[in-house]
């Protein structure tokens, strides 16, 4: 069931390049006054060589790769310069973990819009995605 869902999502908002596949991509924004937005997705490397996500960009503003982690009772975000993807590995960018942070937003982005997100991989090259924008929060 999970796999079928993932495949459906891949068709809707995924992309491929080299051995890299990206699925379940979504940009989530707060309801009002959002100055930035978080992008979540799953990257899988089905190729035989290691790859590295080395940069991201978007048409809604500059994108940084961040990781939220808990340290000394605080949740802090730290910039992550690059994300290594071993052959066969999949990495989820998800709330409370790695995430793509668009900051600052250079245009108004609301649920129902879409954002063009470009992921730049060392081997696979540029993977361009049209990513749906949804309201923040998850019903799971």
């Amino acid at each position, binding site marked *: 069931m*999970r796999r079928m869902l993932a495949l459906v999502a891949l068709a809707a908002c995924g992309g491929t390049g080299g051995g890299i596949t990206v699925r379940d991509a979504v940009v*989530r924004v*707060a*309801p*009002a*006054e*959002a*100055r*930035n*937005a*978080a992008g979540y997705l799953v990257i899988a490397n089905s190729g035989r060589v290691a790859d590295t996500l080395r940069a991201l960009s978007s048409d809604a503003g500059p994108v940084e790769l*961040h990781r*939220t982690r*808990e*340290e*000394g*009772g*605080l*949740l*802090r*975000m*730290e*910039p992550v310069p690059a994300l290594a993807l071993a052959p066969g590995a999949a990495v989820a960018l998800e*709330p*409370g973990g790695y*995430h793509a*942070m*668009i*900051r*600052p937003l250079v245009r108004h982005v609301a649920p129902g819009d879409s954002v063009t997100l470009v992921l730049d991989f060392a081997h696979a090259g540029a993977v361009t995605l049209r990513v749906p924008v949804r*309201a*923040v*929060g*998850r*019903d*799971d």
Partner: protein
Amino acid sequence: MRRVFLLIGLLAACAAEPERPRSPSGFLGVEQAEPRPVPEVPLVDSRGEPYDLAAAARGKVLLLFFGYTSCPDICPVHLANIAAVLERMPAAVQREVLTVFVTADPLRDSLPRLHGWVKGFNRDFVGLTGAPWAVDSAQVALGLVPAVLDTVGGRLQDYLVGHAGQVIAFTRDGLARVHYPFGTRQRDWAADLPRLIAWPEAP
């Protein structure tokens, strides 16, 4: 044959998602051994009016969270989840719950910005701010580590804020009885809100 069994085993593992253990009083959140009172520090609401948090919360369940409006990953998720669950609750339950967001970034979160951001989730949500010492003191009084500005990379305007990730729930007696860490799901809130309102009775 063996492979088939393995596969079935895996399927069963996926389907039966472990339920969170309940606290001694039956909460899915983290029950506090020594519940602390509503902090009494001078705060103002997003219209700039002094706000007596203890008085406003009297007789209600107070959900209190410290964050900042430029926060993309943690703060909006908590507030959006609480808003979504409250919307599905009867009006009688909604009236019993006061949700308050205190900015841990009072220097950048202006009143209009705080107001627009907080009311965007739910118009009954309350946004508060105050002097940095007051906001810090409120967090310390609740046993939280006060938020810090992360100015890594020398981004003096566009900095991030490290902050406690939990929502603090006060029962109607004004004590912070349960903490809800990041990752609390809407269904967890839906289960616990009636229990918080009913405490010390069972819902």
